[in-house]
């Protein structure tokens, strides 16, 4: 295949950047992103147009006179970088007396990272990739009740290069794969959709990502469950125990632990859009966030997870850290810049979605660590409850307190045994109370490593992938309801 945008070598870009640096600055960084992607889908029996994307650009940040300025450009020539450097310096100067002071990073170290890769995307030809999707999609077509069906595969290859005027140089290459299946069954005034983890079975790697959750064989069960949901009773209403599968746990972690622990939210940066947090700076080190069974890590070192990396987008080396240990809140999701503003130790989580957006505090891989209960033990201890699978609706207040989530499929647990499936299972609660009601944590056999490909945050708006892993977990005394309330 022909190359569309020729990637500049690190040495070439370093030379251009060095030549273009203006005088009178404290530090400047150049963050270059080169991205190629491919999106394939088959919908209702038709191969949709193959879509590829080729993107290349750079963000320059200049620290000068106590201010910080940014300029993003797709012109990576020396003259293009010179113009962008001048623009960024201008912004640093005109905002200096009115800015929240952010110290220059002093980036002097170097490093690299590449996604683990067992079988490259290119090793399977385009025709074979389409054939696979057609085959899988056709397996969703099991009944006239199936009114919509689709199978899709996305692939992104991203090269990130961070250079500093202080000599730092960090190069990272990421390969992402996003498999997806969906079937909607409809009859009368009802429609029920079942999916392949609603996009969460994604990760870093190559073709092998498809096989981590059985993409090639998943379609028949997905379609059958969509039809079964049409005929299933509504989820019961009441206060009861819930068992939460990993593909719902990731949403629960994301919304009611991840976002409230973002330090830029706690510092107020996001109050006009994404929101604030019920967590305050004085809680770290003492606040009982959940029951003593709750252990949460920020772990960018997990092989193949969606948001693994060696350095964040400010160049801070990334390491595994406990955010919550034995239920006690220890540290926030706060980058180096936020840590200096708040005086709290955090993690390496300064991330941008691309070259045209500045880094902000983000989740990366945020995981609930496994416990020691088997799935049989977790189910066996429930007298009256529901097993919840696959998120399909989420809503939470701007302080991340009052939430209401719904799932694609529920299964009643009665007297310690799985019983009938139910449709429209939903539950609501308040974050801290919910996590304090964590009463059982599944062992490694119930543990799954997944991701959330589309997390929106920031002004300017950004969408980025976050990784989440979790075991099956049990929560007690939860307000559960179905569609009729």
């Amino acid at each position, binding site marked *: 295949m*022909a190359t*569309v*945008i020729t990637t500049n070598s690190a040495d070439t870009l370093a030379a251009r950047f060095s030549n273009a640096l203006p005088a009178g600055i404290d530090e400047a960084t150049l963050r270059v992103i080169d991205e190629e992607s491919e999106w394939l889908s088959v919908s209702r029996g*038709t*191969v949709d*147009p*193959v*879509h*590829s994307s*080729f*993107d290349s*650009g750079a963000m320059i940040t200049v620290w000068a006179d106590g*201010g*910080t*300025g*940014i*300029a*993003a*450009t*797709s012109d990576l*020539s020396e003259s*293009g970088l010179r113009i962008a450097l001048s*623009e960024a310096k201008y*912004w640093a100067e*005109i*905002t200096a007396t009115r*800015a*929240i002071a952010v110290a220059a990073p002093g980036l002097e170290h170097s490093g690299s990272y590449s996604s683990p890769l067992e079988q490259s995307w290119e090793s399977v030809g*385009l*025709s074979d990739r389409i054939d696979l999707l057609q085959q899988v999609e056709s397996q969703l077509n099991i009944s006239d009740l199936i*009114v*919509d069906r689709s199978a899709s595969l996305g692939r992104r290859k991203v090269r990130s290069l961070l250079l500093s005027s202080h000599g730092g140089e960090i190069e990272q290459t990421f390969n992402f794969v996003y498999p997806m299946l969906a079937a*909607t069954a*409809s009859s009368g*005034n009802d*429609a029920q959709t079942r999916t392949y983890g609603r996009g969460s079975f994604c990760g870093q790697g190559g073709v092998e990502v498809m096989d981590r959750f059985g993409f090639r064989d998943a379609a028949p069960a997905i379609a059958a469950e969509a039809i079964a949901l049409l005929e299933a009773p509504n989820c019961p209403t009441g206060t009861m125990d819930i068992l939460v599968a990993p593909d719902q746990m990731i949403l629960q972690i994301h919304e009611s632990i991840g976002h409230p622990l973002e330090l830029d939210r706690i510092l*107020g*940066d996001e*109050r*006009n*859009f994404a929101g*604030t947090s019920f967590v305050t700076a004085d809680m770290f080190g003492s606040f009982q966030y959940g029951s003593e069974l709750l252990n949460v890590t920020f772990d960018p070192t997990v092989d193949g997870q969606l948001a693994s990396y060696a350095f964040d987008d400010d160049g801070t080396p990334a390491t595994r850290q406990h955010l919550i240990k034995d239920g006690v809140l220890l540290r926030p999701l706060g980058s180096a810049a936020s840590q200096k503003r708040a005086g709290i130790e955090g993690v390496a989580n300064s991330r941008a979605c691309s070259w045209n957006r500045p880094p902000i505090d983000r989740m990366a891989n945020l995981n609930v660590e496994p416990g020691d209960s088997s799935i049989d033990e977790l189910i066996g201890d429930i007298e009256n409850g529901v097993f919840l699978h696959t998120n399909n*609706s989420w*809503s*939470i*207040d*701007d*302080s991340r*307190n*009052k939430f*209401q989530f*719904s799932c694609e499929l529920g299964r009643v647990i009665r007297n310690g045994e799985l019983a009938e499936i139910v449709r*429209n299972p939903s539950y*609501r609660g*308040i974050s801290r109370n919910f996590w304090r009601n964590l009463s059982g944590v599944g062992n490694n056999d119930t543990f799954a490593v997944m991701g959330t490909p589309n997390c929106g945050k920031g*002004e*300017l*708006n950004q*969408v980025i992938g976050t990784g989440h892993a979790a075991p099956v977990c049990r929560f007690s005394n939860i307000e559960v309801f179905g569609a009729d*309330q």
Partner: protein
Amino acid sequence: MIDQQYFDNLITTATAALTGDEVLLAAAHSEATDFTRFNNAQVRQAGSITQTSVDLDLIEGQRHTQASVQLSGDASADSTRIANVLDRLREQRALVPADPHLVINTEPTSTHQVGENNLPDRNDTLAAIVDRAGGRDLVGIYTAGAVATAFANSLGQRNWFETSTFNFDWTFYLQADKAVKSSYAGFEWQADAFDRKVADATVKLEALGRDSIDLPRGDYAAYLTPAALDEVVGLLSWNSFGAQAQQTSQSALLHMLNGTGELDASVRLSEDTANGVAPNFQEQGFMRPDEVVLIDEGKMADALVSPRSSVEFDMAPNGAAGDESPRSLAVAGGDIDADDALGQLGTGLYIGNLWYSNFSDRPACRVTGMTRFATFWVEGGEIVAPVNVLRFDDTVYNMLGSQLKGLTSEPEFIFDNATYGERSSASRRLPGALLEAMRFTL
């Protein structure tokens, strides 16, 4: 950013290199954006972004493949990039099956619209915002600059739509989550208009200083400001008005489509391109009519039909983009004077904003979400106290149907402030809505 001549030259060059019976479609987005982000009335992040992306669709017969490419702004380099993309698309096209849903515009219409650039100096605006904050806790974002949307094809069609706008979206915070949300957007910054926005927000902020109350779960009469109604209607805009969603029973308006549900007879929604700020052509060069009525007298009217859906579902296309979402949605006004809205509410909730809405039961069009920012308890038509955040969970058939008391007479124009990937050119026009009852659950 690029201008129309630059784009024309690129596509003309690419057209000259086409082979056989190839047809090329090209859509572009180009912008030069300044942004300043504020927290506590100080600058958190500031800078500028210049970017141009082109979406290419290379067709021969019923086979085609598509790609997006970022341009550098250097004519020679960009011409090479587009030639490289076309080579890639040609290679891929040989491997894909015919697309039965492909349709191209056989009635090419060229247009050219460039609005005047009357934007203020960025330093002046920055100074004005910090000054008017007046020591208050202001958080938000200011964006400004030119945005161009374009289409061209190898058949000679050329469309260029360029506007220069600003959008200042901000919140005054009193404490914790007690805050007033405001926005000021347009084409020309007018100091007195901004001052009025600040003064209005300041009055509401003072009201938030009173002791706030917790309301128990239950049904309450409510007045939704246009911004609050925007959150509900905005959710409907996501996969409810399009032909594909409706034909595959995934529209949240399933009951209306089946004739088993309806809204109040006063409710009329339309894709009002003539009075919006989005271009009147979509990414494949099909023109948008001035108006597509989506709901009329509380009942379903037309769907938004993209070219692909028009073939798949045998419907007439009406200029919808591929996602079949409205770009210039308008909700018709009613007969309530906005100044009398609290008086007509009497006792109940004034809801300044809703937030994070999602379907809790999509086929039933049941929506859940939160109150946010300025929400007050009202008695005797007067604001009594701010209300701590509440979760609502109710159907649109109740909110805009059986429980709708009326809509205010003058819809408010709301510029979309979204900047996902690029600055949005969408907008909505909505009135406020007075509800006899709205269900709150947490």
